[in-house]
């Protein structure tokens, strides 16, 4: 039987160390909504999402109440809209109409984000893919809750450099369209290499075409819990350090598994995966950077940061994998800048640069995330940053992503404020030298030799 000490430990994780379930994400396939008539398509999309998800928020709240564990977000991911709209959309405006439908149904059922305004173009773009991509700036400006993602490369296909070039321009344009709000649109837009089909986290969640009609995916969080556990083993060797992280990750992930199974049972939707994640928030103490400091660094970004992050990421997976029957998504420590007070402090102290962040993305999920750069950064430079990150993902057979915000009108040293979970961030310096001739070559970078495993 459970004892008092264990009960107190769990509840302290929840009340003092910000343990929560970050998101229950309901994946919904829209493949059966495809129609060549735009009006009918929009009606079918609305109907399918509404029917599937009208009980999602209430069920999430009941689970939270029954177990006394906060479930921060209830979200929806759908089949990449480039595929769904292909038969009906002739103009960018047609795609924007679908974005508005998604936004409307998201408001109606009460979820805070809906992901899947997406295109998968890792090898090539169809006209529909390109149309959707070109509609992203407008779609993100006229909607509130729609999130967009584009898969630009994979280990198996290489990197679609035409799409990388285009996305540099789209990111800039999205920033311009939402410049009144510190270019907030870019916070809802992410590009990937090796994008997973079952990611529950925004902005990159979409419901892959290999998935079932509906599925429940859950993302857990608990940087504060890991940090607190590590304060008790200060000065101990790496074995003790790693064991402590592993055990803590196990406990955190078990909560995610429980919530995922309950949500699946109560909604009558199959359980997909638990994403073994350490996802920070701007709340004090809910920081991955603070864990790195607890491991022994003065600031995130100091020499040793990549090694510390590598071990953290690995132990989180090792602990989490036994705690859940199915794992997937992005799984690992997230290192967004604006959503993590420790990361913000490191940038402001001059300890963390974009180049060091890039190195860190080699060993963790996901990539350059919520990084704010000067508004005058050129589209080609953003494409160059994207290409670098895609190359890391492609060669290391892992997911990498870029969610970069060129804040219009802002310079290095300024701060932008997104509010809520998205936090605030200092504008970071970008390498000023040009990569334009590289980006303008066009075509695609071939898949690496070690991808040929057949």
């Amino acid at each position, binding site marked *: 039987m459970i004892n008092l000490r*264990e009960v107190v430990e769990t509840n302290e994780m929840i009340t003092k160390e910000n343990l929560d379930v970050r998101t229950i994400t309901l994946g919904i396939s829209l493949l059966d909504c495809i129609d060549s008539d735009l009006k009918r398509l929009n009606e079918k999309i609305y109907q399918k999402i509404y029917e599937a998800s009208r009980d999602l928020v209430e069920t999430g709240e009941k689970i939270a109440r*029954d177990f006394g*564990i906060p479930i921060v977000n209830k979200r929806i991911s759908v089949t990449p809209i480039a595929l769904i709209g292909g038969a009906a959309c002739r103009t960018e405006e047609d795609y924007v109409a679908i974005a508005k439908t998604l936004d409307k149904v998201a408001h109606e059922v009460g979820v805070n984000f809906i992901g899947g305004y997406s295109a998968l173009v890792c090898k090539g773009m169809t006209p529909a893919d390109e149309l959707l991509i070109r509609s992203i700036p407008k779609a993100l400006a006229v909607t509130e809750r729609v999130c967009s993602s584009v898969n630009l490369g994979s280990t198996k296909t290489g990197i679609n450099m035409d799409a990388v070039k285009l996305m540099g321009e789209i990111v800039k344009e999205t920033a311009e369209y939402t410049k009144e709000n510190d270019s907030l649109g870019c916070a809802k837009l992410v590009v990937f290499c090796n994008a997973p089909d079952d990611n529950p986290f925004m902005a990159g969640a979409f419901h892959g075409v290999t998935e079932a009609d509906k599925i429940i995916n859950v993302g857990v969080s608990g940087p504060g819990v890991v940090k607190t556990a590590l304060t008790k083993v200060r000065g101990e060797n790496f074995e003790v350090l790693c064991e402590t992280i592993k055990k803590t990750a196990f406990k955190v992930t078990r*909560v995610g598994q429980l919530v995922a199974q309950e949500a699946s049972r109560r909604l009558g939707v199959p359980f997909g995966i638990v994403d073994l994640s350490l996802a920070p928030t701007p709340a004090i103490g809910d920081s991955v950077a603070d864990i790195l400091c607890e491991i022994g660094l003065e600031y995130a970004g100091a020499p040793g940061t990549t090694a510390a992050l590598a071990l953290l990421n690995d132990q989180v997976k090792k602990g989490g994998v036994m705690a859940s029957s199915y794992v997937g998504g992005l799984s690992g420590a997230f290192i967004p800048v604006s959503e993590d007070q420790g990361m913000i402090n490191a940038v402001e102290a001059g300890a963390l640069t974009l180049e060091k962040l890039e190195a860190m993305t080699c060993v963790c999920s996901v990539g350059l995330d919520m990084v704010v750069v000067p508004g005058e950064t050129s589209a080609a430079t953003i494409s160059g940053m994207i290409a670098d990150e895609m190359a890391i993902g492609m060669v290391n057979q892992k997911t990498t992503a870029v969610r970069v915000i060129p804040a219009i009108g802002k310079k290095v040293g300024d701060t932008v404020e997104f509010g809520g979970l998205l936090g605030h961030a200092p504008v970071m310096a970008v390498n000023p030298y040009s990569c334009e001739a590289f980006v303008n070559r066009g075509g695609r970078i071939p898949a690496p030799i070690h991808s040929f495993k057949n």
Partner: protein
Amino acid sequence: MKNTIITVVGKDTVGIIARVCTYLAENQINIEDISQTIVQGYFNMMMIVDTSASEKHFGTIVEDLHSLGEEIGVEIKAQKEEIFDKMHRI
């Protein structure tokens, strides 16, 4: 039917257990186990209870106990046992 864990955390005062037990008795909630300790100067009590005979919805019990806690000046939670079981037992 899984049990429910009720926890009471706060400064020790006279009659905490009496007030909680009265509420449980009035609502046909059976106490199966009870333990308490003082952690860092704070009163920590845990009850394992069975709510299956109660006519009240679980959500109402959670809210009632929360309000009772506010009245007494302690924090009272009711949570389904599975969260602790899952976390601490393989």
